[in-house]
């Protein structure tokens, strides 16, 4: 579903991603871990299409489309979703109104019929019920005055509503307590299916106890340096990122 080949990305003249390769198939959950500054958030933002990133080499195929040629809203309509690490607030814009407009914009792009208010609300209540989220967030402006946990919940709710083919969770677990974490994991697990794939970007192994990945990758110095199954995450937790360094370049670390 997603094929990234030799991706090189610069921001403000500095190269952050240095030849990243990644293949994700439908139904799979991939975890990406790595030290700070490695480029994890850069990856999420580049895939979603944020401006300010210069792609100097490489390709990204999303299904049969060249992802890098599409505008952010087109990528969304093609089925890509990014759950932000720091969701921005949009005061004055009602959350429900925003989501209905977004969903309908995507449906229109795909040639599907748009939902009217009644149909939309029905869909919303269904998703809220499944996720055990109160409908109170429907009445508020987008993320305005939301606590950190509420913002993350809103991201998961949006994901459930928009039903993407590929969902990228950018450090969704940061700043969450154990209950909020479990809730996020439940939301994701509920959406796992043979047609859908997830990329879970995280610092800590803990989330991966709840969202069990099929593959774990370590992103360091701008590229994926090691891949493995879920046990790799445990090893990282035990030994830290330096351990990866050692395994890659033993000569360097033994001075």
């Amino acid at each position: 579903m997603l094929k990234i080949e030799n991706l090189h990305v610069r921001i403000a003249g500095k190269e952050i991603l240095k030849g990243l390769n990644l293949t994700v198939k439908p139904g799979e959950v991939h975890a990406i871990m790595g030290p700070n500054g490695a480029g994890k958030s850069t990856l999420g933002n580049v895939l979603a299409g944020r401006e300010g990133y210069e792609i100097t080499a490489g390709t990204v195929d999303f299904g049969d489309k060249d992802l890098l040629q599409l505008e952010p809203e087109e990528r969304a309509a093609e089925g890509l979703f990014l759950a932000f690490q720091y969701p921005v607030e949009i005061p004055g814009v009602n959350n429900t109104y925003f989501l209905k407009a977004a969903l309908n914009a995507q449906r229109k792009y795909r040639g599907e019929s748009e939902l009217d208010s009644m149909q939309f609300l029905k869909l919303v209540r269904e998703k809220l019920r499944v996720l055990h989220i109160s409908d109170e967030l429907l009445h508020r402006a987008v993320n305005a005055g939301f606590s950190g946990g509420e913002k993350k919940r809103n991201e998961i709710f949006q994901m459930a509503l928009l039903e993407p083919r590929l969902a990228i969770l950018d450090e969704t677990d940061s700043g969450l307590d154990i209950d909020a974490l479990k809730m996020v994991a439940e939301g994701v697990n509920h959406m796992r299916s043979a047609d859908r794939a997830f990329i879970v970007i995280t610092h800590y192994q803990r989330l991966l106890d709840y969202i069990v990945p099929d593959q774990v990758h370590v992103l360091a110095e701008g590229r994926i340096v090691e891949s493995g199954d879920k046990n790799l995450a445990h090893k990282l937790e035990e030994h830290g990122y330096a351990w990866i360094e050692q395994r890659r370049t033993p000569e360097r670390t033994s001075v």
Partner: protein
Amino acid sequence: MATERNDIENALNRRYEAGFVTDIETEYLPPGLSEEVIRELSAKKNEPQWMTDWRLKAYRHWLTMPVPEWAKLQIGPIDFQAISYYAAPKARPKSLDEVDPKLLETYDKLGVPLHERAKLAGVAVDAVFDSVSVGTTFRKELAEAGVIFCSMSEAIREHAELVQQYLGSVVPVGDNYFAALNSAVFSDGSFVFIPKGVRCPMELSTYFRINAMNTGQFERTLIIAEERSHVSYLEGCTAPQRDENQLHAAVVELVALDDAQIKYSTVQNWYPGDENGVGGIYNFVTKRGDCRGARSKISWTQVETGSAITWKYPSCVLRGDDSSGEFYSVALTHHAQQADTGTKMIHIGRNTKSKIISKGISAGRGQNSYRGLVKVERSAEGARNYTQCDSLLIGKKCGAHTFPYIEVKHPSAIVEHEATTSKISDDQLFYCRSRGLGEEDAVSMIVDGFCKQVFKELPMEFAVEAKKLLEVSLEGAVG
């Protein structure tokens, strides 16, 4: 969410059945201003002597006044001798085919019904087609309620006592430079009188007045609400109106007696000129409401997106005890537009309240200034004011400026002022786009959220139009 762009060819091909009649008027005065011109102007309108004298007094006063230069506006010099004060309508386009296609495109985007487009574009329209029947039924209803709603010219002839009693009582002839000029040469406007205890059965809209579009550049309006009466008045329209006359210096006076309420809503989109502001209209207006009676209430709501230069401060004089004044405004400046607008709330009576919600949006190279005065006089025990003035900047070349003036002379007054300035951030835009919304839709949505507090004060049809108008006005604002 963006207005569907209909195929303009199709729209134009639907032939306008009635056909057009060119209406050639032969009366006109050559450009220039003098006592002679004013006398002639007054004579052409068949005005009584007292009206002519009133105009002359205003003119003589105007001659002694200097042109005001304190606003944060760049205005080219205006040659008052080059304006004709009683001009024939210029040769009009005979059909929509002769009208600037860009203008037609805008009508299309705003969803203006076809038969209105002709009128708005200045195409001479057969009077028979011009909603005469609508006007008639509506006048009948008003007449039954005792409401007078007619043109100012008619009022001067038919309701002289009322006019004499109230005209100039809220905006005196010498109040300011443009008011003085207006008093001398005003062309026409609306006159509204609501008798005691009457709630006007419908919203009064200038649209219903026949020839509303041709009131000329010096419009004069007077609205009187007697004890316990209510009226809601709508002025303007969303479709851009072109006019060769560059200067529009109107005066609007509102009078509310005991327990009366006047709601005055304006949606104005005067032609802003081209992208460099050339040819746009100067909208210099004096609007003031006098809450003369106890417990009276006057509320101003405006959405201003047009004009090359907007200079206006709809204000309230809170004379009656327990009276209240409100001002809700959205002012947009784009391309090279400038606006210096705001309000004045003058607290004189006891326990008076005022509320000011001003939203300024600047885009392109637009310059938007809010200038507000909250004045609490020595007599105004228990005065309360709440002011919120927010600015939204779109892009890197626009400007927003705030000049709040607060003068308080009574120790019991409570005056609150909040102000915010924000940008539509890249983060917000990206968030919207990452969910599937296009850039322009995202900007519209965010701007609408910003203006919500003001839009909800507008009568419904106006609110819907105003939203669409903002969307159209902001096209190309991002990037």
